[in-house]
Each structure stands twice: as C-alpha cells, then as structure tokens.
C-alpha cells in the first residue's frame, strides 16, 4: 500500500492518524522535531499493525533542509498529511513580533515550503494525496486567536489553490478544518463537551474523507454549519462579539 508521510508526527492528532493509517495497512514516515521521542511510538505501531515505520528529524521552519529531507525518502510516499500546528500565545504575540513570526512560520510558511516540494513531485508522478490540517479558526478572525487564525486561513487558501492546480494531474488535496479537539494543544482550555471531539474521531473522519477524495472536511461534521453561520454574521455585529 506504500508509505504515508506524516509531518508534525508528535501531536495527538498525528498519533491518532498514524494508528488509523497503520491499521489500514499503510507504512509510515513519521517526521517531527525531537523525533527521538517517537521511537516508542514506532515500536508500538510495528507490534500492533505489523507495518514498516521510519522516523525522520524535521524542523518545519528550517526551510533549507526541506528539499534534502524529501529527497531522502525512498520509496516516495503515496501521500502526505501535514499536521504541523502551533497555537502560540495570542496576547504575547500582539506585543512580541518573534512570537507572531513563530506562529506564521510554523502554521504557514514552513508547511508550504515543504508542500511546494512534495506537490511538484506528486504532480510529476500524477498520483497521490495531500492532506492539510487547517482549522476552523482560519474561517474568520477572532480577537482570541487571530494570529493563529490568519496563518491557518492563509494555509486554507494555499490548499484550495493547490487543489485547483493538481486536480488535472489527479493528485487529491484535502483541507481539514477540525473544531475543538481534546489534545495537548488545547489542554487547560475549557472546551464545551458536546462540540469537542477526540483525536481518534478526527483521524477516523480524515481517513474516510481522504479515501473518498473529499475536498474540504469539517470535523466533527456540524462545524460546517457552525462556521457557515459565523462566516455570515455581518461584520458590524461580529466586531462587537466576545468570541
């Protein structure tokens, strides 16, 4: 079935995706910073599912290393899932531009630097899939996280452009917009139970949407409607809201 490349493999959603794809019989390339921490994860996946797992050290903001990283993957992956994300500290970023840059580079420039390279390869091979994990936060700017949201929004637009470009050569691009997910990133936040999903649920949704070659996935599904309403609120009202 070939290798799937998961970038940002230490996150909770990435781990759940690794289980989901390995269970389905895919081999995995797991790439992340401090990748030594993935060793036990790899042992676990091999024992549970009998698939091949390879671990790679990768810093998404170290742009210059991206080409050689991808070059070294042999065989080339049948698909890539970009899970990298950094929520950052909105309040800090408002007065500290280095934090703002970190949010932008991790969520946007880093991801597209690598995806540009991968997209060229897949386009040439006329096969494969690209899954980008964006966020509902990218659908409309809110005061509580608009720096993260604007980077994710840019990533969403990038993915839609990529989908347009790669539709002819038959490379499938899926944009994923998770709502609230119970993960390390959201730990300590007071998330509403009914609107919150687990990483395993999100991974399951993503796998199904990727297999069905869907374009945009909101997970859980009702976020499509929540965001439809939020996007259509008049700005004159929206700007006064506490969201």
């Amino acid at each position, binding site marked *: 079935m070939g290798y799937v490349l998961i970038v940002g493999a230490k996150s909770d959603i990435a781990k759940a995706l690794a289980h989901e794809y390995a269970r389905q019989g895919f081999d995995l390339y797991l790439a992340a910073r401090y990748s030594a*921490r993935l060793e*036990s*994860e790899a*042992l*676990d996946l091999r*024992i*549970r599912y009998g698939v091949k797992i390879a671990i790679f050290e990768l810093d998404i903001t170290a742009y210059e290393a991206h080409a050689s990283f991808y070059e070294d993957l042999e065989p080339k992956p049948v698909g890539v899932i970009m899970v990298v994300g950094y929520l950052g500290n909105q309040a800090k970023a408002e007065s500290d531009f280095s934090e703002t840059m970190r949010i932008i580079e991790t969520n946007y420039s880093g991801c597209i630097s690598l995806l540009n390279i991968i997209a060229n390869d897949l386009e040439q091979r006329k096969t494969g899939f690209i899954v980008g994990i964006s966020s509902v936060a990218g659908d409309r700017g809110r005061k509580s996280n608009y720096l993260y949201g604007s980077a994710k929004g840019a990533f969403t637009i990038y993915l839609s452009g990529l989908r347009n470009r790669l539709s002819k050569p038959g490379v499938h691009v899926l944009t994923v917009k998770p709502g609230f997910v119970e993960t390390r990133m959201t730990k300590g936040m007071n998330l509403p139970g009914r609107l919150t999903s687990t990483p395993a649920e999100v991974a399951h949704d993503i796998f199904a949407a990727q297999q069905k070659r869907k374009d945009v996935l909101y997970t859980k599904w009702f976020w499509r409607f929540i965001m439809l309403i939020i996007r259509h609120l008049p700005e004159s009202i929206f700007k006064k809201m506490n969201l």
Partner: protein
Amino acid sequence: MEICNWGNYPRIDATLIDFDNAEDLLLPLAEKKSLIARGLGRCYGDSALNETIISTLRFNRLLAFDDNTGVLTCEAGVSLKEIIDVFMPRGWFLPVTPGTKYVTVGGAIASDVHGKNHHNAGTFSNHLISVAVLLSSGSIQSCSRHENGDLFWSTCGGMGMTGIIVQATFQLIPIPSSYIVQETLRAGNLGQIMELFETSIDWTYTVAWIDCLTTGKTQGRSILMRGKHAKAENLTQWKEATEPFAIKAASKINIPVFMPNWILSNSSVRLFNSLYYNKAPRHTQRSITDYDKFFYPLDSLINWNRIYGKRGFTQYQFVLPKEGSGKGLKKILARISAAGLGSFLGVLKLFGKQNNLISFPMEGYTLALDFPINERLFPFLDTLDDIVLDYGGRLYLTKDVRMSERIFRGGYKKSEKFIALKHRYDPQNKFQSMQSQRLGI
C-alpha cells in the same frame, strides 16, 4: 477537576498530570506535594486518589513482543482490553484477568489482580517477568524475582507505594480459541457450593454468583460457572469455527445517568436474586460462550457503577483461610441478610495457594459484595471486619475505601515489612494515597 474511582465515592478535587515520556515526570517529582499513580481508576475506593494524581493513560505503548514465547513488554498505561484486541487474534491471551478488561497493566501490577483461574494460575505477578519503577529519586529501577527482589515484591500488590510503575514484561498464554467451554451448575446452599469448588479444581476457571440474602437451609445458594478454553473441535457453530479467534466489539450500552437510590431496595435485590437463581438450569448445562461474556459480563454495561446512585457504592471483598472458611462465611452471610443493606452482586471464589508480601489472595474462599453507600453501611462493615480478622482473613485493598489501620495490619501479616520497604524506596514519603494515609502506610 473532580475525580473519583469506580465506586463514585469519595469524590475529590485533584490535579491530574499526564505524561508521554518518563522524563516528563521529573518536574512533578521534584515538587513538595505527594503523588499517586492512576490508570483507568477501576479500583473502587480511594487507593488511586490524592490531590495530585499522575495519570498513566497517555503512557500506553507496546514495546516488544516475542511471537515464539508470548513475552510482552509494554508501558504501564496499556489497558488489558488493548492487549486482548491486539494479541487474541494471534492466539494469545492474558495469563490472569480480573472481571473487567478496563484496567491498565500498571494497575494490574499495583493491585496484583487475580482472576477466575487463581486456583491454578495465581495472581498477575506470577506471570510477571520484570517491572520498571520510577522511584521518588527520579531514577528508573528495574526489578524482578532475581534482581532487586525487595522492590519487586513490594511493588506487586503495593498500591503504588514504591513509585510509579512505568514498564512491565510479562508472559501471555497461548490459547486454542477465543471461546470458552462453560458449565453452569446450581448449588442449593453454602455447603454444596463449597463442595462444587473442590470438585471443579481441574477446571481452568471457576467462579460463583451467590445469593447473600437467603437464610436457613438455602443460605448461600449459588450458581457455579466453570470454564476452559475451547479447542477447535469444541466449536461446532459455523461462525465460531470459521473465526476461532474473533474479537468482540466494545459494547455501546450505557447507563447514562445515576439511578435513584430506591431502585436497589432490599426487596428489589431479593427479587432479582430469586429470578437469577431460578433462571439457572437445575442440572449441569454446558455451552460455548465467547471470552467477553465469560470474563467481562459487566463490561457490556458502560458505566454500570451508576446503578448504585449518586452517593456511590463500595465493594467489600475479603478472603478467609480455607480452614474455617465455611463457618466464617455462614456467620458473615447471616449478618448480611439480617442487615438488609442490599448487596446486588455477590461473587464467591476459591483461591489457590499464595503467600506474597502484600498481595491480597491466600488459599481459601473470597467473597465480594457490592453495597450502596449510606450512613448505616460503614458501622455495619466494621462489624464484618472483626469476623474476617477473627478467622484470620483480610480485605482487598483495591476495593477498600474505609477499613481501619488495625484491620489492615491484622489481616496483612507482613504489612510491617512492606511498610519498611516502602519507606526504604521512598524515604521522603512522596507516594501517598488517601488510602495509604488512612492505613498508616
């Protein structure tokens, strides 16, 4: 956040700290506060409760498995359910399993759990090859029967007092199928069921459901269930024969809310017991059943603990040495039926030989009873404690929420040595639970 264990009593406000790597724990270990490790929280009372709790649930990776020998190494947060799901299709099963698969490996070791095969397989620690414990010093110490034996024996059944169990290596057993050949037998009273246990000693698994409310000639009427792993030739149904290692999907039946307390009144329990007893066939009945129904009948009811209402419940589980078991059980059953505190589920089992440092089982009969919490309960259980102690028995720490230090020390003959070892490995008394504080450990 508010945390309680399976009995829903007590509920306390606690900070839950989880970890992906053992190094993540160096920080909380360096702080002044005491800690206790916790897995799936299936102990009933206050064993895994403290203001600061280390949850092992994220630390749940399988690290090595030998297909030839069945030896598995994994992290402490792996649940028994995960082990079954992964290894049963390959023909391996747990060497010992408690009545729920929703416990972690760390919890199984800390409680040194037993199962329906205790009379021939002993406790979980009998199959444990080695265990790694994160000590209060921050170092990870490996131990086994041959290496650091003191740490090994004070960790098996030691309720997390020596440190945080982080990794374990143990033996899985080969099985011919995931099905069980089961026989169900009715016993009209306590004498009959004890005889049945004795004559069923060659069966791999034995357990009895016991009616704790009848008196006189029918006191202790019971239903014995005995089983062994089904071989290929036992599987006559097409579905079983074509998929001899089938895994059961997790149940979706949920008890969504706490039941009101009156549901478990004395008369409703009496009625249930009577229906249940009379439903069992008068004569021995043989059947093929799947592992999930045989080992984990209650797992199919998610949140079944809510049946006992908001105030929660406790399970009173004791063991009496074989000599004198009959007399002691009679006395205790008489007290229970007279008190009318409504014990829904009574489970009786004959343990085999065992004499560990701090593990619960010893050769003799163990009885486990659920009681909803109310103001009359604890004084009543205190009176049972004295009978248990009189007959040389003891209570299971994993189920306990209220026994006194006197009963603990009196029942666990080697408790002094255990406590001394706990303080040798944990000189700053870093690892404490509400239970250990109550018991003076």
